[in-house]
């Protein structure tokens, strides 16, 4: 049997959960407090990466390859999401000359 890597022996899995929670909360903070649509989008990417890191950590600690396959699929979906999302932001900028999400309330009137 192969030996367990030192990082898995010395760092408890709880530390990874704490790290991912902190990253996720930073992402939420970015979504809630910024008005620039691109930065809001980047904060969403941060949240996706926090979840990826946690999935990979659980997968490595319990030797289950499914978790890392899920991370792979999440990355594929994130790439598609970014392509469409940025196209939408470009279209919004072209129409209203701004990427301030506070201006996007035209549907209200």
């Amino acid at each position, binding site marked *: *049997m*192969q*030996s*367990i*890597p030192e*990082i*898995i022996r*010395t*760092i408890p899995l709880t*530390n990874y*959960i*704490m*790290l991912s*929670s902190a*990253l*996720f*909360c*930073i992402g*939420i*903070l*970015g979504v*809630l*407090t*910024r*008005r*620039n649509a*691109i930065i809001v989008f*980047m904060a969403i*990417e*941060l949240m996706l990466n926090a979840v*990826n*890191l946690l999935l990979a950590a659980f*997968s*490595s*600690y*319990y*030797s289950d*390859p*499914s978790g*890392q*396959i899920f*991370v*792979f699929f999440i*990355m*594929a*979906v*994130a*790439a598609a*999401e*970014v*392509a*469409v999302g940025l*196209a939408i932001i*470009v279209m919004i*900028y*072209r129409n209203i000359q*701004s*990427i*301030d999400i*506070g201006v996007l309330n035209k549907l209200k009137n």
Partner: protein
Amino acid sequence: MEISNIWYFLSALTLLSALMVIMSKNPIHSVLYLVFTFFCISAHYVLLNAQFLMAVNIIVYAGAIMVLFLFVIMMFDLKKNIPESKSSLTKLAGSVVAGTLLVILIAIVRKNNIPAPLGDKFNSQTGMVENLGQVLYGEFLLPFELVSILFFVAMVGAVLLGKREAGERNF
């Protein structure tokens, strides 16, 4: 230097650069900090013995997605149209919500004890390309093929959304 110290240093670096992503005023600085965050997360993948994910993370996130972000930011004239920042009341409310969520998550983790990692059945080759390829092309073959359809739809959608219609100005 012990490996746990490396872990703590790397985690602090990750959180710091993630904070800088949402704090910095200039969007280009934000993108560069985000690239740095992705490299830190890739380093975490290396520590976790997940080499395949490290390579994919660097290629897909730091390579493709961030270049897309940089292109889009450079297309906008952001000197002219900087969105004014939200009121400090909104910022305070957002911080309270995020902080409460963090406290709740940490409390949940501390309440539950996670089962210890398996000792004998541990397989250090889990994250290697060979092992993951066997799983990806065996058990997950159908989702893997469906991802290609998703990419096709996303590509068509992005082109359709980005196309300039007759009479519309460029920028």
